């Protein structure tokens, strides 16, 4: 691969190799070897050096690539990727070679300047210097960025995220450099070198970033320079350099190690020194040094491994997982020395089990499912390069381990940050990490000789990866504290007696009971969540538990960090086509065993080369094996056609009704504003189509003086008046588009036509889009009344509050479904905005989006004057909608361990085959759920894995595969199943099932089923697990909120009866249930209630100089409210700030800016920006809440006496409402059912 890269660049081969690693110029190579000392002196020195001579170093990756490959970049994406790869590879190496460095990198991503550096410049040294700064900054800034990246390695991602505000995440990919034209991706594949961390597409980012970086962080650069040295010196001796240039696979020998080593140590030292210069960071650098130092004593054998739990972590991805775990368990305090409690045994067992699992699981299933239509085999036979650096490594490792182990306990920092939410990977770990590092003796740096380490540790690991892991887990067992958690989760709770069930902070996903090492790499619960974090061994056990088994996925959500891999060969299981992932086992150097089907596969040659460490024979250090979430740049094998450009068609209702509602003006304004932010590249195309009783096309061809409207009045047989001028290149016709958008609102302001020919308009849109595929955005304001797909009003307003079940929840015609399937087949996604004040039969219309993987937005009673709240929501949603990331022509496949199977899917998509979802468009805000069943006993395995692979075309025309892998333990005890139950996930899955049931059967059936779910659970628990003779409703603590959530579900618009609910709103609520990600859905179902007027600093988060108070959650009951308080209810899509009648005057004055309660306006919908500390705190809290969701929520200030308070009180689900029981009544009902 390298060779090919060289050719492209037309560089001299020898020089090139060097280039790849650190810089492109041949000069570098020499300096690296000899120059190392120079670097040592100071970062500044090295820095200039690097920049000027080669240009590569200092310059961001882009630059590098540019000079070398001018021709390449523009024409073919291939080249771009190449460049990237080299960079990325380097960067990668940095990360992975030194576990520590990785961390640093990641952290650096947080801190602004450093972050930029890491991605752009692969150079290993970066880690050293970079990490420390990052850490420091991290504390302050990490939270700002909202979500801590969980994948440490993807520094480049970090960069992006860092640069772009969270809201703009969607654009990350979009911003990919123009350099990479979409089509090239396929052909380029062969050319590409191995793994490039930074994806080619983002090269542009790099470039920009790098520029920043270079300027800002001089120190980093020098370290970087050092890094390259490491790289090539370590894995391959200096002599081998040429070999590098060749192909990784071909590279025969690791022989050079000794010589290389000698050189390497120096580098390390240097780097260390550089890092030392930063006072704060010195600790980190030391640690890295320490690793090096360890080597000399390397003689220590495996025993040491045992002793040092930390070693793995450090080695592989750095300390993060260690800290990570710790954080979870004991956020505030440093962990106590690990006294393994009884529970511990379980842990170790699990971990060991996991280890062994792969072994026994054995029989490779020969059943080959030939793969996805789109995904075809990469033909790779790993040729065996016999060369393996087998030798000396092990000793080094051990010593290292021992060191780390010693330091470990200290490492835990009491960081306030840790208390924060979810993502364990990200922020938490970092802060904690550092301290640990720091503690290490600086002396380590001195012992330089062991470059080998990197390679060596790898050996050990794969030779015996699991044992060491298990040992680790054992050592850490005490720390991990899982047993305690489990005990707590199993504590029987008598619901009739315990009333305060809510945790003070929003509930977190339960931690699967895995070995720390697996936990560290496991997929983020925000992306991938299972209802049972311990998978029951058999279907019988599952049935006994009476809980649904299923997954909740949010595969395309905006990520802060994401390792992107460009590789010739995407390594996959030959039989089940699973992508290689962190949970596979390496049997030896050349073979790995699939964790889903247990087939033994060859490791392709290319995979043997680890670009991070620049070493050969360390497949377990590859990013694919280090991250549960990775993204591959796919080759042409994964394309059925050249990647499509981003194509957007807007279909606008301009009938009289629409004009009355007045949405058109705001839509046009919003689109005008965001025209440049539409995801896409130079090929982006847009088109417009309006309709009333006729269909209007707009000719926007470049060169016209103004947009030309073409009216087609034959709606029975729609034809396209002109084929190439209706969908136009946005860049070329931008002025015309702007013209059109400014004139559209006035053009139809006098329209008196009341009919709506939506069906024919959609047919026209389909015809217009079918050559390319893309996204159709439909705005509709009334019931379609003309042409195909016309609908009748089916709602009987008198039945709105009927308790007898609700009719017409399903579609009235199959027209929309068929059209949606046609669209899906042509890769067209249809998004529906329904802004209607009348019944518009959403149940039928929604089909158009449901089966084409679109999204649905509904604004009941939308009117631009009369309903400002809806207008504001519409505008905000629209902005997010237009600018969010988008993936085209996507398919997603969900694979799971043999024995498990998927039997039902929930969400918006078309299920094309048993496990393949066809998604014409994929957006970052939609989630999916699947129900699973256990077909064969899982007794021969102790781990169950799930892999979701999303193959899509980015808006930049890159074919990409995003792979998430989740690993969970398999248990055979009912109590373990209960201990691992994830009550939120269960609730969401049940909600999805209930929606299905209510459509296919009836609403009352669905409601009964939900109540029965609670009854069954209580019965099952009573009869099987709890041996207490307690009377009352006893459930395990892990599920103590289950009845409450079910009750809340029953009171949702989607499922409630007896309360007047318009059919469209009900149907929309159902659609939301199917597509909202879990966190959002839980906020809708069970809103978070906080008291705001007496927020204290206790437990507050400190983010970037702002203090975010963390008031405790309150139960949703009126008894928790008081007249002298102010309460905030977070309903997911809206905030309600309820002001009590006797509310503290100070609060009203300082926060709302009104002199008294009486003067608070009735329809207040914002919080004024006042300079008072209270106001700042409240706003900080609001912002913090807001940052955790994709669509911004509107704020409603509700006075106690206002009519609006009805909505507020409706959400107090624990109270009795006009037609539904209160929580205690519900419990009594359940108890009655149980005792029957």
């Amino acid at each position: 691969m390298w060779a090919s890269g060289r050719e492209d660049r037309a560089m001299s081969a020898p020089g090139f190799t060097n280039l790849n690693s650190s810089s492109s110029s041949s000069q570098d190579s020499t300096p690296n070897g000899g120059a190392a000392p120079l670097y040592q002196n100071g970062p500044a020195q090295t820095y200039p050096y690097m920049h000027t001579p080669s240009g590569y170093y200092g310059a961001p990756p882009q630059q590098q690539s540019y000079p070398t490959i001018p021709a390449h970049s523009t024409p073919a994406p291939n080249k771009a990727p190449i460049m990237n790869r080299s960079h990325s590879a380097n960067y990668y190496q940095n990360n992975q070679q030194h576990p520590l460095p990785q961390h640093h990198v990641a952290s650096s991503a947080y801190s602004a300047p450093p972050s930029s550096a890491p991605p752009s410049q692969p150079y290993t040294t970066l880690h050293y210097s970079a990490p420390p700064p990052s850490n420091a900054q991290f504390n302050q800034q990490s939270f700002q960025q909202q979500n801590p990246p969980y994948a440490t390695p993807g520094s480049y991602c970090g960069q992006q995220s860092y640069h772009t505000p969270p809201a703009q995440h969607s654009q990350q990919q979009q911003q990919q450099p123009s350099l990479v034209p979409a089509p090239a991706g396929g052909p380029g594949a062969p050319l590409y070198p191995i793994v490039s961390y930074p994806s080619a597409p983002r090269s542009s980012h790099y470039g920009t970033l790098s520029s920043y970086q270079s300027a800002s962080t001089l120190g980093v650069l020098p370290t970087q320079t050092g890094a390259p040295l490491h790289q090539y010196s370590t894995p391959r001796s200096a002599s081998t350099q040429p070999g590098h240039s060749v192909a990784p696979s071909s590279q025969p020998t690791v022989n050079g190690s000794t010589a290389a080593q000698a050189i390497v140590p120096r580098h390390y030292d240097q780097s260390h020194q550089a890092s030392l210069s930063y006072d704060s960071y010195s600790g980190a650098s030391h640690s890295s040094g320490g690793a090096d130092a360890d080597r000399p004593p390397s003689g220590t054998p495996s025993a040491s491994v045992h002793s040092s739990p930390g070693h793995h972590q450090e080695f592989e991805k750095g300390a993060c997982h260690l800290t990570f775990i710790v954080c979870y368990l004991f956020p505030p305090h440093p962990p106590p020395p690990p006294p393994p409690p009884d529970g511990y045994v379980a842990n170790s067992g699990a971990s060991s089990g996991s280890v062994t699992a792969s072994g026994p699981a054995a029989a490779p299933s020969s059943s080959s499912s030939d793969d996805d239509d789109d995904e075809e085999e990469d033909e790779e036979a790993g040729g065996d390069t016999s060369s393996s650096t087998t030798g000396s490594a092990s000793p080094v490792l051990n010593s290292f381990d021992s060191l780390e182990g010693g330091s470990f306990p200290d490492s835990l920092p009491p960081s306030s940050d840790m208390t924060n939410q979810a993502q364990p990977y990200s922020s938490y770990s970092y802060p904690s990490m550092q301290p640990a590092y720091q503690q290490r003796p600086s002396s380590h740096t001195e012992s330089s000789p062991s470059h080998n380490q990197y390679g060596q540790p790898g050996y050990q690991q794969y030779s015996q990866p699991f044992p060491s892991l298990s040992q680790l887990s054992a050592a850490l067992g005490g720390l991990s504290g899982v047993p305690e958690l489990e005990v707590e989760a199993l504590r029987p709770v008598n619901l009739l007696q315990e009333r305060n069930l809510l945790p003070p902070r929003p509930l977190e996903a339960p931690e699967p009971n895995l070995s720390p090492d697996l936990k560290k790499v496991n997929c983020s619960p925000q992306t991938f969540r299972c209802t049972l974090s311990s998978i029951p061994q058999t279907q019988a056990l599952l049935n006994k538990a009476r809980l649904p088994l299923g997954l909740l996925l949010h595969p395309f959500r905006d990520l802060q960090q994401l390792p992107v891999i460009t590789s010739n060969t995407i390594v996959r299981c030959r039989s089940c086509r699973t992508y290689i992932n962190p949970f596979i086992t390496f049997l030896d150097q050349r073979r790995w065993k699939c964790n889903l089907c247990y087939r033994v596969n060859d490791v392709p040659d290319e995979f043997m080369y680890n670009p991070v460490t620049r070493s050969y024979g360390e497949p377990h250090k590859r990013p694919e094996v280090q991250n549960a979430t990775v993204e591959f740049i796919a080759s042409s094998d994964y394309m059925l056609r050249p990647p499509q450009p981003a194509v957007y068609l807007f279909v606008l209702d301009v009938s009289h009704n629409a004009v009355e509602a007045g949405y058109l003006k705001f839509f046009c304004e919003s689109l005008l504003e965001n025209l440049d932010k539409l995801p896409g590249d130079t090929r982006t195309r847009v088109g417009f189509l309006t309709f009333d009783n006729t269909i209007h096309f707009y000719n926007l061809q470049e060169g016209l003086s103004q947009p030309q409207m073409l009216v087609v009045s034959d709606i029975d047989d729609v034809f396209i008046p002109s084929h190439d001028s209706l969908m136009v290149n946005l860049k070329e016709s931008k002025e015309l588009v702007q013209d059109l958008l400014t004139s559209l609102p006035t053009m139809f302001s006098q329209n008196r036509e009341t009919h709506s020919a939506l069906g024919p308009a959609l047919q026209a849109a389909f015809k217009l889009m079918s050559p390319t595929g893309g996204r159709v955005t439909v705005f509709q304001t009334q019931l379609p009344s003309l042409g195909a797909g016309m609908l009748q009003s089916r709602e009987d307003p008198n039945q709105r509050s009927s308790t007898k079940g609700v009719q017409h929840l399903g579609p009235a015609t199959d027209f929309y479904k068929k059209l949606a399937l046609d669209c899906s087949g042509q890769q067209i996604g249809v998004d529906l905005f329904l802004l209607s004040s009348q019944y518009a039969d959403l149940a039928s219309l929604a089909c158009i989006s449901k089966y084409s993987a679109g999204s649905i937005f509904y604004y009941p009673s939308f009117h631009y004057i009369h309903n400002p709240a809806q207008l504001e929501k519409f505008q905000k949603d629209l902005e997010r909608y237009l600018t969010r990331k988008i993936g085209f022509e996507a398919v997603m496949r969900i694979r799971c361990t043999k024995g498990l199977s998927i039997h039902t899917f929930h969400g918006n998509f078309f299920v094309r085959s048993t496990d393949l979802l066809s998604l014409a468009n994929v957006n970052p805000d939609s989630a999916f759920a699947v129900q699973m069943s256990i077909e064969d006993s899982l007794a021969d395995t102790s781990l169950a894995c799930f892999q979701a692979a999303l193959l899509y075309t980015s808006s930049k025309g890159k074919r990409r595969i995003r792979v998430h892998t989740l690993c969970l333990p398999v248990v055979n005890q009912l109590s373990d199943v209960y201990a691992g139950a994830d009550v939120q996930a269960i609730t969401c899955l049940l909600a999805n099932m209930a929606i299905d049931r209510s459509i296919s059967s009836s609403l009352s059936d669905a409601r009964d089923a939900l109540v029965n779910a609670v009854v069954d659970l209580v019965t099952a628990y009573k009869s099987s697990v709890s041996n207490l003779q307690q009377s009352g409703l006893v459930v395990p603590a892990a599920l103590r909120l289950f009845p409450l959530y079910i009750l809340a579900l029953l009171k949702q618009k989607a499922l409630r009866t007896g309360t007047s609910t318009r059919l469209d709103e009900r149907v929309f609520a159902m659609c939301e249930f199917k597509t909202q990600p879990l966190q959002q859905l839980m906020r809708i179902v069970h809103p978070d209630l906080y008291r705001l007027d007496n927020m204290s600093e206790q437990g507050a988060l400190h983010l970037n100089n702002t203090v975010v108070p963390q008031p405790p959650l309150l139960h949703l009951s009126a008894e928790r409210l008081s007249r002298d308080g102010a309460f905030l209810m977070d309903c997911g899509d809206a905030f309600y700030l309820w002001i009590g009648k006797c509310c503290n005057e100070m609060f009203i004055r300082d926060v709302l800016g009104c002199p008294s309660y009486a003067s608070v306006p009735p329809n207040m919908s914002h919080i004024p920006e006042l300079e008072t500390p209270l106001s700042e705190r409240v706003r900080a809290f609001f912002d913090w809440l807001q940052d955790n969701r994709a669509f911004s929520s509107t704020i409603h200030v509700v006075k106690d006496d206002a009519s609006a308070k009805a909505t507020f009180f409706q959400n107090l689900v624990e109270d009795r409402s006009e037609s539904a029981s209160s929580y205690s009544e519900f419990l009594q009902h359940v108890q009655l059912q149980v005792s029957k």
Partner: protein
Amino acid sequence: MEAAVFILALVDCCALIFLSVYFIITLSDLECDYINARACCSKLNKWVIPEMVGQCLSTMLMLVSMHWFIFLLNLPVAAWNFYRHIKVPMGNTGVFDPTEIHNRGQLKSHMKEAMIKLGYHLLCFFIYLYSMILALIND
């Protein structure tokens, strides 16, 4: 006369057997991912009504020729076919709906149904054959 009835029934039964086999093959193609759900369902939906007609035909034949036992044997299946066709929700494309066939084990139940029908038609086939031969001999 009797022989003619059974010959007709035999032919009808053969057609139904072929149809069942076709259903099974198509469904298993879908199961193995050789065709996609859309193609599969549109193929199968085309034959739902012919199948219903064929089944009704043999039922009516038996009724008209007053073979009560065979008529009662046929009746439930004909009724089931009819019921299944009636119960299709308005929004679905037919008995086989591509958007739902992979959900809730529908594919499996369709498969099971096709298998059972195949068995049933085979049984009928031999009954008809036997009756036909008997009728021919009696003639």
